[in-house]
């Protein structure tokens, strides 16, 4: 009984995962190799060629998603790090207030927030029309339906997931250790690059994991803020499923995306694992 106790702890979560993750996945895997249509029904034919076909057909969107995810991740780090740093080291007694402010957008629906950006940034919306009327920007200038708008939306929506883990890592850095670096002749900048930054890298690492995956798979931002040129793989899956009712293709695309991201994440973890990064930073 005693030896079983640890397993009992993971039982509820394990069951949850088994029922709501594994079962649908098995089901979708089976759907992906079926053939047919909605009217006449689908039949299992073990048609694996759908994977190759889907990949070839939507290669552009796959690569675009990866590219958007990558750029948005880099921009997120650039925005989140200074913010997390400021809250952790200069936030004083109001730290928790600032953290709440960071999380505030989460109290508003994801879609609603993105739609409101659409209104704000519309060609004749609140922001652009006054700028156009005073001639600050050309009349045909537009923000929506551009790559920048989609990446901007991604960054905006997922930024807290980057800020929080970086904040947690920075918060754990002992200020005495930073002082020790200064005491040992490190100027402020060196104390940062040699001590604070390496000690906070695990947080950056976690932040990347938490944002890159959902940003790459996102379809809301491209759907609302982007144009036909900005379609991401998430939008394709959505269209195949809901509009074309081509369930096998949608399922095959989902699995391909998942596999690609798992491989990518493992490669990333292996190359930039916490230990490796710290080893390099020690010099």
């Amino acid at each position: 009984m005693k030896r079983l106790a640890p397993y009992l702890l993971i039982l509820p979560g394990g069951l949850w995962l088994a029922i709501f993750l594994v079962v649908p996945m098995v089901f979708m895997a089976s759907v992906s190799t079926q053939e047919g249509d909605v009217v006449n029904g689908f039949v299992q034919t073990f048609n694996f060629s759908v994977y190759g076909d889907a990949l070839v057909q939507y290669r552009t969107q796959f690569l675009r998603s990866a590219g958007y995810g990558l750029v948005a991740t880099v921009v997120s780090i650039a925005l989140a790090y200074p913010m997390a740093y400021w809250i952790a080291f200069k936030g004083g007694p109001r730290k928790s207030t600032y953290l709440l402010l960071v999380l505030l957008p989460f109290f508003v629906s994801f879609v609603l927030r993105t739609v409101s950006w659409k209104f704000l940034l519309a060609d004749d919306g609140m922001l652009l029309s006054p700028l156009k009327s005073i001639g600050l920007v050309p009349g045909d200038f537009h923000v929506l339906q551009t790559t920048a708008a989609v990446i901007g939306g991604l960054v905006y929506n997922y930024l807290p997931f980057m800020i929080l883990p970086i904040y947690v890592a920075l918060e754990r850095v002992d200020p005495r250790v930073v002082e020790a670096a200064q005491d040992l002749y490190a100027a402020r900048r060196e104390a940062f690059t040699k001590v604070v930054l390496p000690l906070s890298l695990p947080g950056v690492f976690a932040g990347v994991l938490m944002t890159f995956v959902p940003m790459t798979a996102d379809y809301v931002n491209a759907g609302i803020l982007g144009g036909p040129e900005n379609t991401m793989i998430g939008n394709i899956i959505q269209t195949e499923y809901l509009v074309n009712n081509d369930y096998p293709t949608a399922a095959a695309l989902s699995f391909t995306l998942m596999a690609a991201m798992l491989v990518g994440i493992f490669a990333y973890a292996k190359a930039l694992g916490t230990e490796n990064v710290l080893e390099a930073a020690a010099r």
Partner: protein
Amino acid sequence: MTDIQAGTEAAAAAASTSAQVPAIELDGVVKEYVAHGEVVQAVKGVTLTITEGEFFSLLGPSGCGKTTTMRMIAGFEDPSRGTVRLHGQDVTDVPPNKRDVNMVFQSYALFPHMNVWENVAFGLRRKKIGEAEIKRRVGEMLEIVALTGREKRRPREMSGGQQQRVALARALVNKPRALLLDEPLGALDLKLRQAMQIELKRIQREVGITFVYVTHDQSEALTMSDRIAVMNDGLVEQLASPREIYESPSTAFVAGFIGTSNLLSGTVDRIVSGSAVLRLGQEGRVLVAGDGFQVADPVAVTVRPEKITISTEEPTGDLSVVPGIVSEVVYLGLYNSYAVSLADGAEVTVFQQNALDSTSTAERGDAVWLSWQPRHSYAIGS
């Protein structure tokens, strides 16, 4: 001859030519913090001079301002008023990385992402010293602190005592002109602590640099220091050699803080050439040296428990003599500890070595006489 010894000799030669410039001088240093809209004075005006090569301790109870004083020497805190001079140079506005002193933090503050070797090499790397020399000096330093062979360990893979030695090596390897240690042994158990005290003292003798040592452990300060500044509530109460501080505490606080001490109060009965005779109750008389006494003045005196003799018969001679009743006897191995109640209700602690003579075997409830040499009690200002 090791490199460190060579460095020290050079420093000593430099010191002798520059006619004893003090290593560290604090001049009217005050540190104020604003906490919850209120001004708190952590250090209320400290003036002291620490000479080159000295083992100097800051001793005092928790919260008395020891760490704050040390952090101002290291440069982590700006004094609100006053000046800090290192080797004759005003460094009040110089940042910590430009001061030639190194600090050993209370919690060690080792770099958790670096191994022992990288930790120790950190300061030398920042000073842009050549890789070959870094290698030599770090290796030599690790040998001094007996950590050779542990270079690749991370701090969290080491015991408290080992981490403490890494912290020491990391500071000493830079050959600073003064080393600041903030309760470096605080986290160690008693045995390791005593071993490290001896070790620290040996290293200090070997490298010969100034040590400023913060502690709230009086026996540590007494055994290790050349001089001690006893601090209380942001001020230095007494600055003197360990013996002087123990034997002749200048204030009631110092007397109470250092060792066990008895505080007796009486009134001046008469004055005799350079000393006063105090009356304590009906039969007690205490002789105390000093002038400036006035007849009928109330005066407080201290006397250490081990200086008092217990006897069942009234002693004769030029002694301080006070009668009392034994209220408690505690056997402590080498000696007995007696609690003796005086007529005025005060309780006096007496340590008496065992099996010295038969007169000192008093029992609980016995009426006894306490006596001691006049030179063992001091009048203290309040």
